[in-house]
């Protein structure tokens, strides 16, 4: 039913007549889009300028030639091979663990019967409202005492812990798409609970996992607060933390900093553009009826 409804609306959108007022709206939105692109243009433009151009010519003027040396400098100053690998590992591993954990937790909560399971759901979901940003002091203290600070598994542990709430909530909203009859049939055939999950439920939840993974990946990739607290050692730093120190070090010569920004934004933008559909689905859970 819900599918039917959505499909019909997709047609409606194209059926709206293109009138003079639509044209006016189009014109206004084009101006808005240009304004939104302006800062991005500035970043790109600066990232290709020489130092001389930076100081002597107008900031809006295009560079005479593309200065790839800025990118080389950015790679070196950011220690890019290390920081990029670190960020990638933290993001990828955290997101995979989150997918495994949240999927199975949300499923068990929705299939179990009794007060405990209802309580568990509330317990997890309340975490969405608890801002870990406000609790960074004890989060650091606990990590320090458990020897989690300045370790890879420590920061991954924290990303998982702070991401679980939203993950369970998101996965739970997809559980109704798994037909109970299939699970029951499997059980009659003698499938254990764990096997039922991995053989029957897991494959059916693929779109849900894609949504979960891209939502969390984008958060973790851009995280600053936790990363700056947990992994301050040189070899373990993340891209965002390295960029922040570059900003304060290169306050006047910021062509390198701008190149660094391009480098750090590119991967997540590519990921978003290729998986847009899933991303939007994750964002709009609960916002759309039906």
């Amino acid at each position, binding site marked *: 039913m819900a599918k039917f*409804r959505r499909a019909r*609306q997709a047609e409606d*959108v*194209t059926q*709206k*007549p*293109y009138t003079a007022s639509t044209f006016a*709206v*189009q014109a206004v*939105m084009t101006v*808005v*889009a240009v304004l*939104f*692109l302006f800062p991005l243009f*500035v970043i790109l433009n600066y990232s290709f300028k020489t130092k001389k151009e930076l100081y002597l010519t*107008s*900031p*809006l003027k295009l560079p005479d030639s593309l200065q790839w040396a800025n990118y080389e400098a950015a790679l070196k100053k950011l220690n890019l091979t290390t920081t990029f690998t670190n960020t990638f590992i933290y993001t990828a591993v955290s997101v995979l663990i989150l997918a495994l*954990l949240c999927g*199975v*937790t949300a499923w*068990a*909560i929705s*299939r*179990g*019967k009794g007060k405990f*399971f209802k309580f568990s759901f509330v317990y997890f979901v309340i975490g969405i*409202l*608890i*801002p870990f*940003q*406000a*609790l960074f*002091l*004890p*989060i650091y*203290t*606990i990590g320090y005492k458990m020897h989690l600070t300045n370790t890879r598994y420590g920061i991954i*542990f*924290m990303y*998982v*812990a*702070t991401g*679980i709430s939203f993950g369970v909530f998101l996965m739970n909203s997809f559980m109704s798409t798994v037909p109970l009859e299939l699970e029951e049939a499997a059980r009659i055939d003698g499938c254990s*609970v764990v096997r039922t999950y991995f053989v029957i439920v897991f494959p059916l939840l693929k779109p849900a996992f894609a949504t979960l993974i891209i939502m969390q990946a*984008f958060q973790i*990739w851009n995280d*600053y*607060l936790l990363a700056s607290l947990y992994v301050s050692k040189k070899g373990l730093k993340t891209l*965002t933390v390295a*960029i922040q120190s570059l*900003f304060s070090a290169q306050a006047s010569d910021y062509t390198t900093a701008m190149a660094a*920004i391009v480098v750090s*934004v590119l991967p997540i933008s590519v990921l978003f553009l290729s998986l847009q559909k899933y991303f*939007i689905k994750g*964002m709009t859970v*609960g*916002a*759309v*009826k039906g």
Partner: protein
Amino acid sequence: MNKKKTMQDKMNRQYFLLIVPGMVIFTIGVILPLLLALRYSFTSWDGMTVEKESVGISNYINLWKDANFRQAWWFTIKFTIANTIVQNVFALLFAVALDSGIKAQKVYRTILFIPCLVSAVIVGFVWLKLYSNVLPELNEIFGTNINFLLFGDGKTVLRGLVIANNWQWIGYWMLIYLAGLQSVPSDLYEAAKVDGASAVQRFFNVTIPMLAPAITICVVGITTGSLKVYDLLVSSTGGGPGRASTSVIQMIYATAISGRQYGYGSAMSVTLVVILLMVAMIQVKGLKSKEVQS
């Protein structure tokens, strides 16, 4: 019947075991810090020594009298209110505009969305340079005299940060409104049209009520997100000029880590968590009661 019950019991036990790992991690990483913050907030701990001297509620009493803390809250509240209004209004306006049948809707959607993929630390730095180096150039080109140095003055710094924050997040909330708009069944509009409702009437009497779940998500998301502002300030204003743009989280950081007043900082944390939870609950309750049942 009896057999069925033991079967469910057996399965419940396995379901329970599946929930345990997630629950343990969540409890250690989120709930335990919350309880620890509460405990430390009643001590004068400096974060280093073994002993944690209990001081009762004196940290909270001092907070009440702390002019700097009040100023940090005042800034955070103004920042939050401005964001909640501006972001919701523009996100909804842009969503309606994109849904009005314009061509290349997806291109606009992507352009407006891209800024939120950029880390807030980077957004802060980019706007710092925009205000100080790039935008003043426009004055020279157009011969105007607009003050673009928004981060340099305590009176304009809030405006500057709100603009930067909105550039980053409007597209995100717009997408949620857009999804909401596209799920409104078109027969509702037809019925309203037949009844002679004008476009404005249709917007307020059909669109807005049908968007209620999206409005709830956006209002709560923007409010709680703004109350937690920190990353944006790190590389832009650093809380200045003076203390003009110091947010609550930034003040917790300065107090507990640079100022070594861990107990006092924890009291600030607890205050922030309590207020955030209260605001979210009041908003959810208030907005949910306005949502129509369909």
